[in-house]
């Protein structure tokens, strides 16, 4: 068991916050990738790639991005619960 000095508490809070920011940044990178990159910035390029019966960019624009968004939030929820427990800041 770590000693619960104020200093120790403080560095633990900093480490927790850093782990939290890392999770957020990774998930937001995917968020931007499936929407802004795949459907908009590369919209013209991926138009020429087939995804079953649709152009790939169209699939991302009207299906894939939204499906990914849903998955991202559930992953975030699971991931944060895990981080909360690791740093012993989870709720009773």
């Amino acid at each position: 068991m770590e000693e619960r000095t104020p200093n120790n508490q403080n560095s633990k809070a900093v480490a927790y916050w850093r782990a939290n920011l890392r999770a957020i940044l990774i998930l937001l990178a995917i968020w931007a990738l499936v929407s802004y990159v795949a459907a908009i910035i590369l919209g013209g390029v991926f138009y020429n790639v087939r995804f079953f019966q649709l152009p790939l960019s169209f699939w991302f624009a009207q299906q894939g991005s939204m499906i990914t968004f849903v998955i991202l939030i559930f992953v975030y929820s699971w991931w944060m619960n895990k981080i909360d427990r690791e740093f012993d800041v989870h709720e009773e």
Partner: protein
Amino acid sequence: MSTETWTLIIVGLTFAFYLYIGYLNRVRETAGFYVAGRGVPAIANGAATAADWMSGASFVSMAGLISFLGYDGAVYLMGWTGGYVLLALLLAPYLRKYGKYTVPDFIGDRYYSNTARAVAALATIFISLTYVAGQMRAVGIVFSRFLQVNIVTGVIIGMGVVAFFAVLGGMKGITWTQVAQYAVLITAYLITTIAIAWTLTGNPIPQLALTFTDFAQRLNQIQIDLGLKEYLRPFQNFSQLNVFFVTLSLMIGTAGLPHVIIRFYTVPRVSDARISAGWALLFIALLYTSAPALAVFAKYNLINTLHGKTRAEIEQIDWAVKWEQTGLLKFEDKDGDGKLEMTADKATNEIIIDRDIIVLSTPEVARLAPWVVGLVAAGGLAAALSTAAGLLIAMSSAVSHDWYYRIWKPDATESERLLVGRIMIFVAILVAGYFGIRPPGFVAEVVAFAFGLAAASLFPAILLGIFDRRMNREGATAGILVGLFFTLIMIILMRSNRLLGTEQPIIASFLGINAQGIGVVGAILNFIVSYVVSRATPPPPQEIQELIEEIRIPRGALAPTAEH
């Protein structure tokens, strides 16, 4: 039984059901009134948020809008869903931990300023009011279209139902009614979409039918043949730049809308706030991923059935005759060759399709039983009423909680606050009803305001309040004001033909960005100004820095709700 009788029965039953739920969930204390006693399970909050979010327009018009915009309709699909990722990752858990009642609560406390609180309350009222007018109007329109009741009577019936459960039950009554309303609206939407997917493609799952059958390509080819814009090719209706900025503006705006944010105050714990955003988006995405499939199938079917037919042939089609009577479908043989043909040119086009028909006519086009038509009417009403109720509580709490209690009369007793809350929600319903009966001519224009202002003012202020410990009163206030005024002025200038009555918009765009996308620029300005000003002025006081440390840690959110 006739379609109309079925509609009357189903709408009547659903309304009775909402009233019953409202009666069961009446409340006696302010925590119940504003945040449903923080006792809403995560999954129920998800369903309520989804119903809150999906408006009458999402239900009735969105699939039609997409079917006319093709690829570029994605700005609405991605824009109105992607904001939930921002909300879940950046705002909801921290605001739940902070654990008060409203958005101005957080801004006022975090920036230790009643000016900031008052401005945030004003923004909340303005954003919610622009939205709610359209909802009441939608209620009236559904009544008039399906039940031949006039619009004013329809609006008054809708007001009566909302008033009952909102005044009695506040947030608690609204939440549980919204859960029921979500069930009604999603059932109606999915039955309709599944039916047309099955009839047309043989695959009952709309999302799979869109991806694995060639109907989208067929529609694309038909549009090319008719000289219309290609359906599947990007950036035919909006420029790439505008698709980018409008999508981002809608996402940031979504995350900053007060009526959505306050929903996350109602769950018991921080971890519930996180997962309940996931449930909300899952429930929203059920409709939002079905809509593009419905758009393709219904449009393909309409053109395929109607194009090139003679007047006599059209008169054999029941639904074509019926919808022509409503004015949503128009036929005119302009070149007198006996055939009705669609073209890209307005002067020669002989079949005019209103976008709302994409959803409304589908049950009949797909030959569904008459009760499904009634269910679609009930679904449209559920979507409009649930959104209206959510906006009403956001608006009235800004007045009764933020202005009356927090600023004007901090020593008000529990029962006084509850009474003021009930009175304010009743007043808000009257105001919303008035705008529903006499809609201002620029309702469509003000929706750009709601998102733009939420994106440029509330979202950056909340985000910086959580993630930037050094952000202070001076920085945040300056940022909000700059973001707010820049966005307001830009939208007014770009829409001056509608808002000020000038012949042409005073400016066409801001560096190519249109009025719907301008909120992003306002938000960026807000961030820059906040940063610069905060670094040039004193840091926030010690107790505020401790508050920030506190909201960053989940533990301890389960505080007793009667604390203040």
